């Protein structure tokens, strides 16, 4: 109980940054990027006394519009479940921020600052578990609306989300094997180092012939150790999020808007916002798993603190390191969000059977092969070292 205040502050920070700051701005980024890619001027009409701030007032206009619209429950709908569904869809998404570390562990004298809300030993499993609950939001929304288009959308959503959850779990087993942990903070620490690209060759007797190549180092980030897992996992989480190109549960040209067809006002807004919040969660999760989390490449925490301490002392050095790490984390999150936006506005929507084929016939075998090859390589390296 004595540690309740720091936990509350950390929770507030991540919710404010992720939900209140990032998500609304992403709705603007989405509009602007679609405008750029379709050769339009884009969101620039919302203004206060003629000042448009590059269209950044559009999120504000959105919120005012959604809050003042009538909240309609269709006749024949199951009222309680209809009202509950947007909450079931959005709460798990926000809850998954709880285990994502946005900084490392820092020692200020006797106090230790750990920049994660809940440092769970089973952190990745927690995210998988929480994410699987969000399926109910979409399924119940479609059923409780008493509309056949909605029901079709929710059936598509449930099949798609369950299928991609299987591959999502299997695709990063290789990553767990590399880092030997499921704790997201330990993964960050493991990525705060470098590895020599051709170092493994020394175990096979190629010490002298490498020359300068033997000094070539890369940060030991997940994306460099498990490039296939990065692609597979990103595809799976994007399919889980149901945004284009995986927006078949919404499928505007076929089933109008799918599972949230009968929603209006702020309840529609919750579905809409939870997709954007999930974009931030995906960015943060991909950063923590594959892009080295809060770490700065080729510059470990010990290097930063060790380098700054002689000038400003240990306290300032640690504080500076903490600030640099948090900034590095959010820069990487922004890069991952940009990547998702780029994919969203580049690829068209595939047919439903193509989505299912991609999951079960391409990505599932690939992720199983990835586990096998990773295990073999780890055994080979261990054998060569021994």
């Amino acid at each position, binding site marked *: 109980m004595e540690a309740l205040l720091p936990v509350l502050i950390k929770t507030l920070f991540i919710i404010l940054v992720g939900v209140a700051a990032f998500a609304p701005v992403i709705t603007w980024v989405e509009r602007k990027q679609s405008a750029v890619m379709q050769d339009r001027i884009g969101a620039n009409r919302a203004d206060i006394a003629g000042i448009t701030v590059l269209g950044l007032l559009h999120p504000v206009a959105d919120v005012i519009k959604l809050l003042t619209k009538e909240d309609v429950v269709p006749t024949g709908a199951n009222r309680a479940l209809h009202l509950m569904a947007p909450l079931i869809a959005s709460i798990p998404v926000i809850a998954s921020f709880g285990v994502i570390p946005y900084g490392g562990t820092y020692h200020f004298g006797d106090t230790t600052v750990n920049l994660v809300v809940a440092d769970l030993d089973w952190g990745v499993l*927690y995210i998988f578990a929480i994410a699987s*609950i969000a399926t*109910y939001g979409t399924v119940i929304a479609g*059923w409780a609306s008493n509309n056949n288009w909605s029901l079709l959308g929710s059936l598509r959503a449930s099949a798609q989300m369950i299928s991609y959850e299987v591959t999502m779990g299997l695709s990063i087993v290789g990553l767990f094997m590399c880092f030997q942990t499921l704790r997201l903070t330990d993964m960050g620490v493991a990525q705060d180092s470098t590895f020599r690209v051709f170092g493994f060759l020394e175990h096979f007797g190629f010490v002298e012939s490498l020359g300068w190549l033997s000094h070539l180092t890369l940060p030991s980030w997940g994306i460099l150790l498990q490039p296939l897992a990065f692609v597979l996992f990103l595809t799976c989480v994007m399919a889980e999020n149901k945004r284009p190109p995986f927006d078949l549960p919404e499928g505007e040209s076929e089933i109008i808007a799918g599972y949230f067809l009968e929603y209006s006002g702020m309840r529609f807004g919750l579905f809409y916002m939870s997709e954007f919040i999930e974009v931030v969660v995906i960015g943060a999760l991909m950063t923590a798993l594959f892009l080295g989390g809060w770490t700065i490449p080729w510059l470990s925490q010990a290097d930063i603190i060790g380098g700054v301490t002689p000038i400003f002392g240990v306290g300032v050095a640690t504080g500076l390191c903490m600030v640099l790490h948090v900034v590095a984390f959010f820069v990487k999150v922004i890069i991952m969000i940009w990547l998702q936006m780029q994919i969203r506005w580049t690829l068209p929507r595939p047919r439903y059977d193509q989505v299912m084929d991609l999951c079960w016939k391409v990505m599932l075998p690939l992720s199983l092969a990835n586990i096998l090859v990773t295990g073999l390589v780890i055994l080979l390296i261990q054998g060569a070292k021994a």
Partner: protein
Amino acid sequence: MSAPAVFFYAFGAAAVISALAMVLNVRNTVAAAMSLVVTMISLAVVYVVLDAHLVAALQIMVYAGAIVVVFLFVVMLLNLRHDAFAQRRERLVKGAGVVLALGAAFAFLNLVPKSLPTVQQIPADFGSYAAVGRALYRDFVLPFEISSLLLLAAIVGAVVLAKRRLS
């Protein structure tokens, strides 16, 4: 009462109440299935309080996240109504259910606690994925592989039976 104990009793009660809601809610099968989800999640919280973290994650991922979604899928497609169930048998079934529930409650409150072995010392990593993984893949690897073969056979059998009905 300590914080874990509060969580234990609160979510234990939630599990029982939502399980009752599932059984008694014949009018709306989708709401009954959602009550089952609440039961599963409450049980997962109870597992977390008991330090069985891996079981808690699997409880939500497998039961709440996958199996009940498939239940819901079927229930939504069939769109069952209250009159889809036979009225006459209901009273008999309810009576038998009450007797069975009382018997189970008696067994759990009286017989089970006496027959449980007393644990001297709980290992430090009890319930973690590492401990469960060691038990599954090192100590009991043969039974584990045999049960996975059985499951594979069951899956193949189900596919064969379903395909035959289609053609």
